[in-house]
């Protein structure tokens, strides 16, 4: 199968993720959307890796997975901290810093 189809799927997933980040209010959902973007990149990497016939893309994808996990962990930690402070869990309500 042509690598193009994988790319189309990957681009679609990336766009969905991007749209989610821009549209959704809840930081949890935003984190999910960021995951979508990262995984779209993973799909592209693996597809290219197959297309070029070398492993670099696969190694890259593995590393991305680890990093994505770290990012989500930190994100969730922050959201929990905010929740415990009774701050609104809504990015539009977090506007204390707009000068």
């Amino acid at each position, binding site marked *: 199968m042509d690598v193009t189809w994988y790319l189309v799927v990957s681009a679609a997933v990336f766009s969905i993720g991007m749209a989610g*980040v821009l549209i959704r209010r809840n930081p949890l959902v935003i984190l999910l959307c960021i995951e979508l973007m990262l995984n779209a990149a993973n799909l592209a990497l693996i597809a290219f890796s197959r297309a070029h016939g070398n492993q670099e893309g696969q190694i890259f994808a593995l590393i991305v997975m680890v990093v994505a996990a770290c990012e989500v962990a930190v994100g969730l930690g922050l959201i929990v901290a905010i929740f415990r402070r009774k701050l609104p869990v809504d990015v539009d309500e977090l506007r204390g810093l707009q000068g």
Partner: protein
Amino acid sequence: MNAILAATVKTPDIDWGALGPLIALTVGACVVLMTGLLRSPAARTNLVPALATLTLIVAGALAIGQWDSNADVLEEALRMDNLALAMTVLFCFAGVLTVALSLRDLAPRDAGHGEYYALLLVAVMGMVVLASAQNLVTVFLGFEVLSIPLYVLCATHLSSEGSLESGLKYLIIGSVGSACLLYGLALLYGATGATDFDAIAQAVGGGEIRGDVLFLSALALILTGLAFKASVAPFHQWTPDVYEGAPTPVTAFMAVATKAAALAIIVRLFDVAVVGAVDDWAPAMAALAVITMLVGNVGAIGQSSVKRMLAYSSVAQAGYMLVGVIVSTRLGVQALTFYLVAYVLMNMAAFAVIVARERETGLGDDISALRGLGAERPTLAWPITIAMLALAGFPATMGFWGKIYLIDAAVDNGWAWLGVAIVLGSSLSLVYYLRVVAAVWMPSLESSVAVAARPAGARPIMAGASPEADDVADTRAGAVPAGGDTPTASTARGTHEERTDADIGDGRDPSGRDRAADRDHVGRDHRHVHQPEVVLVAVACAAAVLLLGVFPDPLFDVARDVGEAFGNFD
């Protein structure tokens, strides 16, 4: 059995010496984290920062030790050339100053000393990886290892809403940036079939893929991702909010070190890996640079928070520094290196003064906190004056030579109009830099301006003067409301109570908390907080700005050495 062992244990050839700075930082981070678990408060508050400083100094020294060695390490995943080493020293230097600024800050107390300083060291490590990356994989890895600790560091001042908010904002926007970068890197890999910079440069130099849609979108996405990190307009919107909310020492670190790291990787990617396609990306980047100068300088005018003002000014400075990348000559790289060093020193001096005044006045980072500083505190007034004049590019400071060098590089390769753009941007910047100087030395007028700029009852940004600190003060007074609290809130209260107790146990009175009580008359409430290390940072950085402004030769030598690491310009 032995044969199998012998076969599997065949390791790649690793140049451990060249990895020295990275190893030192990693080990240091672990040790600092463990030391932070000690029971003795004295060990936590004193030993941890001392160990962190030691780690940074050792890492910096190891980097200096291998100057000019240009070692490739880990199968060319990293290259410790002079650019990487110079940046390593710069990051370590910024790290040491940040440790000094954080010593008496509330953020490490809130988050735990071990965690705070360990995160700082990891962030420095990520920067070193990023600045020495020779492979798309290490680019992304370094990028994330630098970013993730910074997200947490921004939020370390747990008792301040602003800090948490800035942490979350930075996390979301930073992650979008890194996702864009990653997708771009994936596409670049797809277009060239390699993750190694040299191989990519070869593929790009071949010219077949120059007009390729895949390749061009890869460049666009990579530029976007890195622009987020370097706060290049129009991807800068997070900068003022995050800078304002984060604890000031962390802001200082982000403003200088992160930007330096981002620019280092921009110059590596664009001036080495894809320099063959310079005609494709240079016009776009030039447009970004000009927009950045404009947005940064215009945005900074009229800010009453000095941190926000410096945030916008750092946006503008990123625009100037991009010029060094765009011209894509060795001279450009040298000018960029020179300017980065100047930028770090100038901003560190300014931020140190802000940290000092935040703790002394209770006015937070508002410009009114600097009012009349010239008469009261010359040791703080001169550093901020010199920093502002240097940022504006006045002569006899490093900023002057930095700008001349950048203009020189721009004109030299036919980008004269970018030189003019730098100059016009600097003219705009005078408005807000001179306003700070006027507040410091000529208080009469500024008083009315500052009061008008910040409406009464606005939330002070200063740590400890937030509504939250009220709670803390209440808690300490034993006035916890009996009912009406949700369980979560009680838990939060409980946490604060513990922390407050711990602080008392430390034998140090966190001066910031006290101020919450009398913040009603913060207007001219000057207390002398004993913080020699902050004053020292300010004075030392300002002195360096002046000294290297009059005798800039050593720095020019460093810049030349760094330029020589770019063999592709021969």
